[in-house]
């Protein structure tokens, strides 16, 4: 039975049974009064007001309940609503700026030591990443780790945000008035700066000096090249490693920190790349004290004490020039001499020593070998080190002695970075006039009366001449964030010139750029680099410091005693401490020791064993009346009887990140010997790698000798096979899996271990691109760093699997854990291998990690529940878990501050999610870049071109060790490379477990002379 019909009133009134008969439902209908008609057609009778109230303001019960219900619901909703963050659209859209479309502007990074031509990636008006500028003939698209991280400094909340007089906030006008009234009567004025390679800045300084005649400009470098400059008559030679078949370095860390590492690394790597067509590579000898990045790449490395370095130079000189007897002899040196002699005009000897005598000999050796003009270029000298130690020391003495009226510190922080910093600290407050242009109230700036902070370089116009004849421009990529003023403009204003610095630079270039100036200028700004006649006058050659014979005489007598000390510069953190407040660089592992967050006393193992020191024991270092306390790090390869300490740590007033990290070694510059005492305290060192040897696991990383490679390139890589019924097969031939089909793209990457120098530039490139959190020292000690990309560093060991039979398995395994005293080093960049048979994908219970149709192993963050099963099952251990909420847990506010403040968050890449606590993350192969490349191509109705899509790591690699591309495109660089190297050097890490990675490594080839490494495998 259906429901009984329930006709509505409208029907019942409109459809009477007969027109003549009318039935009324009640007297009301009959009367048809207006009151009745009002309600006749509604379904329900009107509600009766049960409690009629005469007071219209009194709320009836129902209303009260309604209101209360609404109130409670509204309060509840309001309390759980997320705060509104407004994104306000442009009223008038600026030209070129499209929301979510990145713009790139060419600019230049120079921090007083490193020169890098960069492209600034701007999103919605803010710089978010720096990339190498491929137009630059010097850095050629490479970018150092320091430059990569520099974008973070722009948003550093520790920057001084306004002008200040005696620490009180002030205005530029007030400061100008006071300063200009004092400048005239200041007498001797000194401008102290690190090396300035900007011609326009120098012009501005000259203009200032013209206005105030007592002015002198003193440049000093925290890691000085004074000796090199002196030995070459005031000229810093340009070097070309690309043409050198034999490279001998006497303590020069030219791949890491010496003069122009990005440029040198590219040149060096060119000589190291091999293929079956080019079976040659340079041979690199390194004589050094501490294990540097360069030393770890050397074919032959000889640890020497600092006091012996002169003797080595002398012996080398004698060997080349056929001179007299030498106090130092070593078969490896003899071999180096014969190699150099065999490669006259195609070899290069460099030295990092600051001793003019050593540098004189090195110059003489290059001269004798005929290298000047081929690998050593004196005609287009490098400008990046102009500091003069003698002048600086004299100035410091003058300041201390009260003989200076006023000092302007232009980005210089000598209180921290000069050996006499302590004395300066006492003297600066006594100066009549002290001004700081530094970006923060640092150790020096805080002592000055006036602080006139400079713009950040990303907010500034500037020009550079890193090498004579090579010009470079910087353009602002963002409006100044704070009330700062460009330092050059400040100087010009004080000199009475009110022009803007932009016009000043532009006018300066009128003489340089020929033809149509406007077009040429626009092109120069667009390209960021230009070739041109030098803006600055050629450096005046000074008298040569000494002759080779004099130098020999000086060095013959040098003799060390006691425990010798070297202070050195870290690859990540510069010696001057400019980068100290940059958490990316603080957490960048040292390429060799893999230590982060702080410096340490690197000691050879022999010394640690003799003194019964364990890693992390705090040692008091005393030298020349100065002391610091540092934990011990046992460094294989450190010369016996020596210790070394990194500069740039121990800042007091760098900011939240950099303060009290490590200890300042600047006072120890120039101190040769120290005494060491154990304090009994222990301070763990935060290393990202604590097991240092490869344990003979050739399946992980492979290397072989050039001799074997020359014999047969097909026999340098061991390919594991597994036994099947059909005989031995490649592991990939046997599979239970149904393979994925890649119909469109199949992204892959090849990493040439021969050209990877381990510098760590890719690590920072990845970190900035992918918003990877910084976790701080304690969390690194807890082994929870978040880097998606890491560079594994393995030392060789004296023990090998071949010793099993003789010494027993257990003893051998134990011995294999110990690195050799002077080990060979191999670097292996390691990130998600994007396995085609990914073990992580099968074990995730919620399908948060899956395989893409283009071969990527992709991580869906918001699906992840965080079981960490994938990380356990990852054979490469590349997955990173968000143990904490790194962007809101107060524990990380200091180290990961850029994720906490609106200012800092401007640096985050809006294309990449900041991961929540409790989810797994890992390398995505920069899927956002792949997507962008595909979309750009699609808009133009074509396929992405090879090289159009580049991952952040591949982009930043100074040596082009990383090749990324589409493996399905037979014409791509990667396809050709893999085809060429198949069966030769190409191998997959852990091939036997058949996870089929999309990352291919190329076997490292060493060019060591066989007589020194008899155990070298025979092909």
């Amino acid at each position, binding site marked *: 039975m259906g429901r009984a019909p329930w006709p509505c009133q409208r029907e019942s009134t409109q459809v009477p049974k007969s027109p003549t008969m009318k039935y009324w439902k009640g007297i009301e209908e009959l009367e048809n009064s207006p009151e009745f008609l009002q309600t006749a057609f509604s379904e329900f009778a009107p509600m009766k007001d049960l409690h009629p109230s005469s007071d219209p303001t009194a709320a009836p019960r129902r209303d009260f309940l309604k209101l209360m219900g609404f109130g409670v619901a509204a309060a509840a909703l309001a309390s759980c609503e997320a705060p509104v963050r407004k994104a306000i659209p442009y009223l008038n859209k600026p030209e070129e700026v499209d929301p979510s479309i990145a713009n790139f502007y060419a600019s230049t990074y120079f921090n007083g030591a490193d020169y890098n031509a960069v492209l600034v990636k701007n999103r919605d008006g803010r710089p978010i990443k720096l990339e190498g500028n491929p137009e630059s003939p010097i850095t050629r698209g490479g970018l150092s780790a320091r430059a990569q991280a520099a974008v973070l400094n722009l948003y550093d909340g520790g920057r001084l945000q306004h002008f200040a007089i005696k620490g009180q906030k002030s205005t530029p006008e007030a400061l100008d008035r006071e300063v200009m009234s004092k400048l005239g009567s200041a007498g001797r004025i000194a401008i102290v700066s690190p090396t300035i390679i900007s011609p326009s800045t120098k012009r501005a300084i000259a203009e200032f000096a013209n206005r105030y005649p007592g002015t002198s400009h003193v440049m000093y470098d925290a890691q000085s090249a004074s000796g090199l400059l002196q030995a070459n008559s005031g000229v810093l030679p340009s070097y070309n490693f690309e043409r050198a078949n034999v490279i001998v370095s006497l303590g020069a860390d030219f791949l890491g920190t010496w003069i122009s590492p990005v440029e040198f690394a590219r040149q060096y790597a060119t000589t190291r790349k091999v293929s079956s067509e080019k079976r040659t590579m340079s041979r690199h000898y390194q004589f050094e004290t501490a294990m540097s990045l360069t030393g770890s790449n050397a074919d032959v490395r000889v640890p020497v004490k600092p006091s012996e370095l002169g003797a080595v130079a002398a012996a080398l000189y004698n060997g080349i020039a056929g001179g007299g007897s030498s106090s130092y002899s070593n078969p490896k040196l003899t071999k180096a001499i014969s190699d150099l002699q065999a490669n006259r005009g195609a070899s290069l000897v460099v030295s990092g020593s600051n001793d003019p005598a050593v540098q004189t000999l090195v110059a003489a050796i290059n001269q004798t070998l005929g290298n000047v003009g081929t690998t050593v270029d004196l005609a287009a000298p490098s400008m990046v080190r102009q500091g003069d130690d003698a002048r600086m020391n004299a100035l410091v003495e003058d300041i201390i002695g009260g003989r200076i009226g006023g000092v302007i510190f232009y980005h210089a922080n000598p209180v921290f970075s000069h050996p006499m910093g302590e004395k300066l600290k006492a003297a600066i407050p006594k100066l009549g006039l002290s001004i700081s242009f530094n970006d923060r109230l640092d150790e020096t700036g805080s002592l000055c009366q006036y602080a006139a902070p400079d713009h950040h370089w990303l907010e500034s116009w500037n020009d550079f001449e890193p090498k004579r004849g090579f010009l470079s421009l910087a353009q602002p990529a963002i409006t100044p964030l704070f009330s700062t003023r460009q330092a050059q403009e400040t100087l010009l204003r004080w000199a009475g010139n009110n022009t803007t610095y932009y016009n000043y630079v532009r006018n300066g270039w009128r003489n340089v750029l020929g033809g149509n100036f406007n077009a040429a200028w626009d092109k120069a700004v667009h390209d960021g680099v230009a070739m041109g006649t030098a803006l600055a006058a050629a450096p005046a050659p000074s008298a040569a410091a000494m002759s080779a014979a004099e130098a020999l005489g000086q060095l013959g007598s040098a003799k060390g005693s006691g425990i010798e000390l070297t202070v050195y510069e870290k690859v990540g953190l510069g010696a001057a401490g400019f980068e100290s407040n940059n958490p990316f660089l603080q957490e960048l592992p040292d390429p060799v020791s893999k230590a982060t967050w702080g410096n340490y006393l690197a000691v050879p193992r022999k010394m640690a064993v003799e003194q019964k020191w364990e890693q992390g024991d705090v040692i008091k270092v005393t030298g020349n009346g100065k002391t610091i306390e540092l934990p011990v790090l046992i460094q294989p390869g450190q010369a016996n009887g020596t210790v070394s300490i990194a500069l740039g740590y121990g800042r007091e007033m760098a900011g939240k990140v950099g303060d009290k990290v490590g200890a300042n070694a600047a006072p120890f510059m120039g101190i040769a010997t120290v005494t060491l005492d154990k304090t009994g305290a222990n301070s763990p060192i935060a290393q990202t790698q604590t097991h240092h040897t490869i344990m003979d696991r050739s399946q992980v990383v492979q290397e072989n000798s050039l001799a074997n490679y020359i014999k047969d390139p097909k026999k340098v890589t061991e390919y594991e096979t597994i036994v099947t019924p059909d005989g031995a097969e490649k592991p990939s031939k046997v599979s239970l899996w149904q393979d994925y089909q890649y119909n469109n793209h199949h992204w892959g990457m090849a990493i040439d271990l021969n050209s990877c120098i381990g510098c760590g530039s890719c690590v920072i490139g990845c970190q900035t691109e992918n918003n990877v959190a910084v976790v701080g020292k304690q*969390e690194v000690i807890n082994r929870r760093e978040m880097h998606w990309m890491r560079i594994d560093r393995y030392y060789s060991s004296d023990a090998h699997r071949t010793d099993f039979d003789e010494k027993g398995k257990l003893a051998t395994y134990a011995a294999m854990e110990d690195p050799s005293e002077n080990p060979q080093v191999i670097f292996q960049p390691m990130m998600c291998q994007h396995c085609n048979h990914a*073990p992580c994908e099968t074990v995730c219970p919620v399908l948060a990690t899956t395989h893409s149709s283009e071969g990527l192993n992709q991580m869906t963050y918001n699906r*992840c529940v965080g*079981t960490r099963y994938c990380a356990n099952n990852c054979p490469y251990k590349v997955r990173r878990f968000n143990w904490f909420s790194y962007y809101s847990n107060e524990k990380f506010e200091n180290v990961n501050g850029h994720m906490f403040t609106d200012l800092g968050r401007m640096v985050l890449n809006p294309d990449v999610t900041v991961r*929540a606590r409790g989810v797994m993350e890992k390398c995505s192969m920069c899927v956002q870049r792949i997507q962008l490349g595909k979309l750009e191509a699609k808009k133009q109705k074509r396929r992405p071109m090879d090289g159009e899509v580049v991952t952040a790591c591949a982009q930043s690699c100074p040596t082009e060790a990383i090749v990324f591309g589409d493996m399905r495109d037979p014409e791509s660089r990667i396809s050709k490379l893999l085809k060429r190297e198949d069966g030769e050097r190409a191998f997959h890490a852990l091939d036997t477990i058949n996870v089929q990675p999309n990352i291919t490594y190329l076997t490292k080839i060493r060019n060591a002379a066989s007589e020194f490494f008899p155990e070298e495998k025979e092909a």
Partner: protein
Amino acid sequence: MQHISAVREPLVTGGKTYHDVTADICYQVEAKPNIRWMMAFGVALFFLGVFFYSVYRTLWYGIGEWGLNKTVGWAWDITNFVWWVGIGHAGTLISAVLLLFRQKWRSSINRAAEAMTIFAVICAAMFPVLHMGRPWMAFWVLPLQNTYGSLWANFNSPLLWDVFAISTYFSVSLVFWYIGLVPDFATIRDRAKGPIAKVAYSMLSLGWKGSAKAWSRYETVSLILAGVSTPLVLSVHTIVSMDFATSVVPGWHTTIFPPYFVAGAIFSGFAMVLTLMLITRVVFRLEDYITLEHIALMNKIMMITGSIVGVAYITEFFIAWYSQVEFEQYAFINRATGPYWWAYASMMTCNVITPQLVWFRRVRYSIPLTFILSIIVNIGMWFERFVIIVTSLHREYIPSGWVMFSPSIIDIGIYVGTLGLFFTLFLLFAKFFPVINMAEVKTILKYTVDNGPTYTGGHGHGHGHAPAHPVTPGVPASAPVTYNQHD
């Protein structure tokens, strides 16, 4: 259907009558909690507090509160999980497998063992949820319908199998345990004096009347549930072992794991049952129901499973050597001689050597020795899981990732916290539920042809057994036994 032997040893000593059984066992439920129980409960509550604090820290700040790191992604969490699941196994084995094999001696211990199973599984189930980075999303592992189309649970993942295994296991065990409790709840209900107790036990006993029909159904359901649970004894730990066995981690990727884990589970479960029963029988004066014979039998099972586990340990080493796989070999060499050698040594000593002492009759029948042994085995089995999980992970394929693991205070807090949770639940059970299955124990009072439950005419009876309550006088020795009478 019960075969009554002329020479069988008694399963319950002390010449108990049916009424004695009821009175002895109901006494704990009906009497005021004694001081020892109160103290034990206080301690358990304290550790439960530790548990809640540790869980709060974990949930509020994140898994970073634990000692895990980038290489060792599981350590105490999954160790504890496997350990607790393993402990649970004895209950199921006793209630299901021994029922099917008509091992009548199980009647005295099955209730407590099953309770232990359930509480252990509750403790175990804490870890898979707590170890998640985002436990509030835990329901995503269930294959629930959603609006995301193909986004579902991953049926390839052993963790998903775990979810099914553990939830099935828990529900079957709970039903089995509860069905067994129903007649006893009815007994307590009938004796209850207080209004709350009356209502509570009435509801718990589901209107049990004790009719012959009800008993018949009870027996049938028990048999069916026993049949259902028996495969679970094998399947649960098999599936848990697959978390490891299906991975690529050397030291985990081992086909021997399923039988090895099941044996280990029963081994540790019996150890835990022994630990608990030895305490309960003293605290609740149940020496007549849980006799030395029970203890000896359980010791034997422990020894057998312990030996199986020992063989498995050795087999792993043999296979590592035989495989000639570099990583596999190193994993085992590292296990025994690497930085965690002490964990491995503890495991071998506790699990392989100690159970062999049970060959000696004197050890088997010694209460203190058995107690110590059971604790040692519990420790050893915890170390077994720690060794498998941590020493395999901490030095895997890529030497640059090799690390050490050390637990944080929160790790320890959660572990002892689950012990607190377990004992809180167990003590509540022991106080409010009958710890021994009265109905079933009554069926085994008669153990030889001419021996039945008798009234001995006195209490105490020189057995050192002095119940704290009077045995009802005047009940004839040959009182007829009817099952539908809950006295």
